[in-house]
């Protein structure tokens, strides 16, 4: 069964309110594809358009090469795992799982064997006769999964499926979901606001904001080469530095600071100003091992926060920006600087990413990144 999904030029408006704005996605057969973004970014609406619960205002959805834009959900070979599961409260686990097969008038014997198989695959043997209310959150989650998978959908759509679980269970389910996806080879389209979830499980991630796709790429690419200020801010912690381009040297833009210090970025720009991001863990307190073209800036430590496996140091730069630096608390780590100390920071040129987008959206992105990490 071909789980190749294409969205082309899809826009969805509710009245005047444009929720999804002209997006294009190409989700490959057997891919684990995530849509990541803050609440209200349009990711769930996009998923519902794939499922058939919403019809795009403009644009088309194709499934396995066939235009399904206006095909009702019951007629699409995709199944959904709903937020909060939407298990039928008056049916047992068994009846929930068998529902789709019975509706499709699959033969009785086959219904039984496929349901048993699905229940076994999510390790719920022995729970067949329970009602959803008698199950824990994690078990309900598995029933929802089994209920969808038993229909052997070409693609499985998951709407924040782990949102209601506690942290530990969520980690377990992440592994399990990924294992199921690999085992069945089903296309998974996964909606989440949790960047970690998206990064650990996905083959590709579409980062969405305000109804548009900001970036669509593999997890590493998204993290290390954020395409926009929003992506940089939303994924992980990111420092945004406003730099003035003083000169250009060998394809690199350079801003000269006092006492031989400078900021270097990979950009052909020769003048004007740039915005760059630097990941906190890429910033070092010493220049050891970095090339000649490394950035090097001085600043005053404003805050030191112990975070367990690492220490987060906040440094105010003379230009008003402030940088967060992550430092592993391994044995090699020397004594941490104290608030008020003046230190210098160094990072390799390839770790300065030039981003597009306006400074204001970077602020917004930062705020939502905070919100996202808090909600974990």
């Amino acid at each position: 069964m071909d789980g190749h999904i294409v969205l082309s030029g899809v826009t969805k408006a509710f009245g005047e309110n444009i929720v999804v704005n002209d997006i294009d996605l190409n989700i490959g057969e057997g891919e684990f594809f995530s849509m990541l973004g803050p609440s209200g970014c349009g990711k769930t609406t996009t998923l519902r358009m794939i499922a058939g619960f919403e019809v795009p205002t403009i644009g088309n959805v194709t499934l396995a090469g066939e235009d399904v834009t206006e095909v009702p959900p019951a007629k699409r070979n995709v199944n959904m795992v709903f937020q909060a599961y939407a298990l039928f409260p008056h049916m047992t686990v068994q009846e929930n799982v068998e529902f789709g097969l019975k509706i499709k008038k699959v033969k009785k014997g086959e219904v039984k064997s496929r349901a048993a198989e699905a229940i076994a695959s999510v390790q719920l043997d022995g729970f067949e006769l329970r009602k959803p209310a008698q199950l824990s959150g994690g078990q309900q989650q598995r029933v929802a999964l089994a209920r969808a998978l038993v229909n052997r959908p070409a693609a499985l759509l998951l709407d924040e499926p782990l949102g209601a679980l506690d942290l530990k269970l969520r980690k377990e389910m992440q592994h399990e979901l990924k294992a199921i996806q690999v085992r069945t080879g089903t296309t998974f389209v996964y909606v989440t606001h949790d960047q970690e979830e998206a990064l650990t499980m996905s083959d590709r991630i579409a980062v969405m904001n305000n109804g548009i796709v900001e970036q669509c790429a593999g997890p590493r690419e998204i993290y290390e080469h954020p395409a926009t200020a929003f992506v940089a801010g939303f994924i992980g912690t990111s420092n945004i530095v406003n730099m003035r381009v003083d000169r250009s040297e060998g394809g690199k833009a350079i801003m000269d600071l006092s006492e031989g210090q400078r900021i270097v970025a990979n950009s052909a720009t020769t003048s004007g100003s740039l915005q760059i991001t630097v990941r906190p863990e890429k910033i070092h307190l010493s220049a050891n091992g970095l090339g000649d073209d490394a950035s090097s800036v001085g600043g005053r430590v404003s805050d030191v926060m112990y975070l367990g496996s690492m220490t987060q140091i906040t440094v105010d730069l003379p230009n008003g920006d402030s940088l967060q630096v992550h430092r592993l608390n391994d044995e090699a780590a020397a004594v941490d600087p104290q608030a008020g100390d003046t230190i210098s920071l160094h990072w390799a040129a390839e770790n300065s990413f030039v981003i597009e987008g306006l400074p204001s959206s970077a602020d917004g992105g930062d705020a939502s990144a905070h919100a996202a990490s808090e909600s974990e």
Partner: protein
Amino acid sequence: MATAAQEPKAPLKRSRRETRNDGGSALSTYGLLAPMLIVLGLFFLAPLYYILLFSIALRRFSPTEALAALNGELNGFTTELWSKLVGVDVIVKLPGIDLTVPTMVVALIFIVLLLLAVSGGRISKDRGGWIVGIAFLLLLAPFLTLPAGNNLLRIMSLSSEGDSLRLFFKSVSMAMTSSVIAVIIAIPVAYFLAFCVGKSKYTWMLIVIAPFLTSYLLRVFAWKVILGDQGLINSGLMAVGLVDEAAPLTFLIYSQFTVIVVLTYAWVPFICLPIFLSFETIDRRLLEAAMDLGATRWQAFRKISLPIIAPGIVAAFLFVFIPSIGEYITPTLVGGTQGTMYGQSLASQFVGGAFNWQYGSVMALFLLGVVLLLTFATSRFLRSGAGGNL
């Protein structure tokens, strides 16, 4: 020794103090409850006790004699009037027995039953279901001792016209019919309001409910204007020539049909509310999930919505069915001679032509007993329908 004996009790006491959740004394607690208990005791339980007394007292009173009787001249027990109701010949008479004690006992049993019926077994869960069983057995004892076969035969054949029991079953069937129709009408209305009108649904629900809160009498009366011989329907049909001016459709008014129509009309708004609320509890995602799994809208309704709201529907039905059995105003106004109900016959024992307070008391107790049994048997539904408020 004494201290040793007290030792194990100490933790118990402490835990009780911890669970007490108030700043007030027991005096103020029960002081606040007292007015309600007094009102219910004096004006609710006491009157029920009196009808019980009247129903089994040996002497046949004229109402003027009754006061004296209640002051202690009751001197015997009889099932005579009960056998008149159920149509059984066997009469137990125990003359010369002071009725005070036995009546008190029966009254106590009766009150226990009452409470059990309404609490829906919540009490029996604490105290053991056997209380319920024994209480019902004691209450039914007079009937159970009668020759069972004969008894059953009489009830089945419903011997004579005008027989109270026959009238009772007729009332039950009329109440049942109108309640079922009301439910059938209410389901699409509630579904429409819950799913199709968006945010204004509560306002619409209020509009549906509002007539229920206006004068019942007048709405019944208005149906006379609609269904009467010169009413809206007949004059409308006459105007288009479908009905002869000289021969209006007479079945429309003063008949069983009229009573059923009016009862249905009167209760539909009330029944819409619990059904609407049950639909409201359905998570839309459940319906989406069903359709995602291939169900059509009708399948989603039948397999998901309907089973989920079933208790609400049953509750709504009972809310209407139970009070309708004892209906008295509606049949009097629009029922004529054909649409009479049990409640009218009961009332006429007290304020109407029949005028027999003792037999009226028997009829009242019988009705009450049936209603309580129904309530008890269905309290699971009633409570779920009341949203856990009961």
